[in-house]
């Protein structure tokens, strides 16, 4: 069980408001990702849920019970920190056993859970080592192991992968996703990496400056960003945002079109431009195209085999059905 509800929760440090009144519902078993630029309050929000910070106002309800003033240990949540926060003077086994020891579980049960967690996380060979003798990925797994054995109502992750190298990050991403399918426990996951958000989440919460910009499934956010911020934040490479005549023609202040929704052709199309930098990824190529009368280049995705070079002329055709239109207030127009 692990449904978490935030009702009008705020947080200020001194007279700086870090979290503005915020409502959010996290269903039992959901994988929710908080994503947003650095300093937008993701960690603070997670720590409020964990109980490591007191709310300035508002209510936090966990499984139907008001948990606003419940101390962290009693909320039944487990947290995995960005720095892993392993106990350096304890072996891996003792690290994993620590929460159970604090809860006063009997030894046999402790060992059973340790063995199970170690087997699931490939840690069996390292149980008698200390954290200092492990690699970053192994430490991460120990931190997850320490969270699993508590059998918490929900897991909280604060940028757990940001200290790992790219290859390991992809691997751990899959492992955490698998863990979620297996345990079916609620997970709240903080990241500023939108690829992690898109690939792992059931529900993404986009935050900016302490406010929720949009909540929805990854595809909802991709298909129908509610405002310019979400439009620019979700998707890689970023959506092209155009103002001026192109927007006015379509009755909007700003229009957005994703690089993958623009067709490139060497001879026909409504927008004519010059190829600038091109990024060849093998499967795809991204061209940065300069269009007359515009400072910002437009990013266009083309097939990996298309061969166009710096300075070539290119014609672009946007997919009209996939143009996003935004009004003067930055909100999406129906």
């Amino acid at each position: 069980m692990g449904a978490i509800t935030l009702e009008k929760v705020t947080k200020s440090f001194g007279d700086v408001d870090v979290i503005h009144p915020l409502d959010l519902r996290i269903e039992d078993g959901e994988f929710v990702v908080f994503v947003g630029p650095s300093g937008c309050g993701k960690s603070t929000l997670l720590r409020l849920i964990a109980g490591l910070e007191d709310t300035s106002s508002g209510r936090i309800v966990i499984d139907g019970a008001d948990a606003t003033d419940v101390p962290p240990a009693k909320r039944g949540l487990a947290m995995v920190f960005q720095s892993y926060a392993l106990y350096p003077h304890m072996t891996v086994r003792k690290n994993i056993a620590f929460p159970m020891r604090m809860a006063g579980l009997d030894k046999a049960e402790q060992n059973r859970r340790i063995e199970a967690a170690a087997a699931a996380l490939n840690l069996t060979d390292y149980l008698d080592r200390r954290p200092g003798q492990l690699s970053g990925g192994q430490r991460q797994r120990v931190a997850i192991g320490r969270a699993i054995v508590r059998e918490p109502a929900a897991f909280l992750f604060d940028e757990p992968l940001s200290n790992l190298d790219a290859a390991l990050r992809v691997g751990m991403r899959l492992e955490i996703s698998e863990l979620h399918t297996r345990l079916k426990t609620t997970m709240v996951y903080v990241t500023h990496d939108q690829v992690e958000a898109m690939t792992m989440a059931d529900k993404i919460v986009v935050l900016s400056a302490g406010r929720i910009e949009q909540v929805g499934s990854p595809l909802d956010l991709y298909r129908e960003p509610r405002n310019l911020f979400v439009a620019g934040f979700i998707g890689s490479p970023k959506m092209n945002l155009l103002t001026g005549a192109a927007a006015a023609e379509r009755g909007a202040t700003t229009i957005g079109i994703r690089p993958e929704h623009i067709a490139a052709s060497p001879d026909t199309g409504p927008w004519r431009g010059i190829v600038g930098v091109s990024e060849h990824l093998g499967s795809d190529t991204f061209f940065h195209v300069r269009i007359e009368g515009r400072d910002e280049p437009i990013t266009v995705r083309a097939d990996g085999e298309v061969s166009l070079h710096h300075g070539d002329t290119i014609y672009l055709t946007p997919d009209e059905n996939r143009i996003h239109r935004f009004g003067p207030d930055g909100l999406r127009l129906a």
Partner: protein
Amino acid sequence: MATKASRTAARAMMSPSVILLLGWMLIPLALTLYFSFLRYNLLMPGGNPFVGLENYEYFFTDPAFQTAVVNTLLLVGGVLVVTVVGGILLALLLDQAMWGQGIVRILVIAPFFVMPTVSALVWKNMFMNPVNGLFAYLAQSVGLEPFDFLAHAPLASIIGIVSWQWLPFATLILLTALQSLDSEQLEAAEMDGAGPFARFRFMVLPHMARAITVVILIETIFLLSIFAEILVTTNGGPGNASTNLTYLIYAQSLLQFDVGLGSAGGVFAIILANIVAIFLMRMIGRNLDA
């Protein structure tokens, strides 16, 4: 120090200081050892004949000897307990954010800057004196008989004075250790269900283990040779109730002018210090390994 050339250079660079330090140590040590085998009394001029272990025999059978050894160990042990326990508590207190933190920290460190003789005199005359002392005044003001600390509890009083001097040192070192503890670790422990005492027991204390070891080792070195505080307060008395080894050696070589006997005592003090050192390293030395 990876290459052979850099190792050789390093040795060449270090050798002057190593030789100087060795000379500094070895010459007095050798002379002490040499004197300890002579009958060498400044009141009896003339030859200083070689007498073998006679000085040692006299030193070990001196009625004050056993008391002095016990007092030395009590003094070291007592001060260590007070300063380490008190230092941990003070460090925990000073680590809390509070109003006037800067001033309080300076106040806590201040005793360390007071010379041992001065602080001992202040304690003796202004606090512990049974007639004029502050403690006597306090005792009288609540209708109690003033207690003559230095006469009735001389060793405990000296332990108190010395602890007061060394508490800042312990506090300072332990405070820096405490401040280097990763706060996420404490938060993780808090989420894992550890209350304040469990966090102290399982996180804070192991984290401070190395600093505590350093405090114990450094203090032991200095505490084995406490002298000034005894000289200005009790003169080793009453009787020899507060005589430690250092003071006994001083009494024998400088009050009785017996250089030979004093040297024998010095050699024993060195041996005792080494025994204590081996003991300590056995007990807590592994804390220093990374």
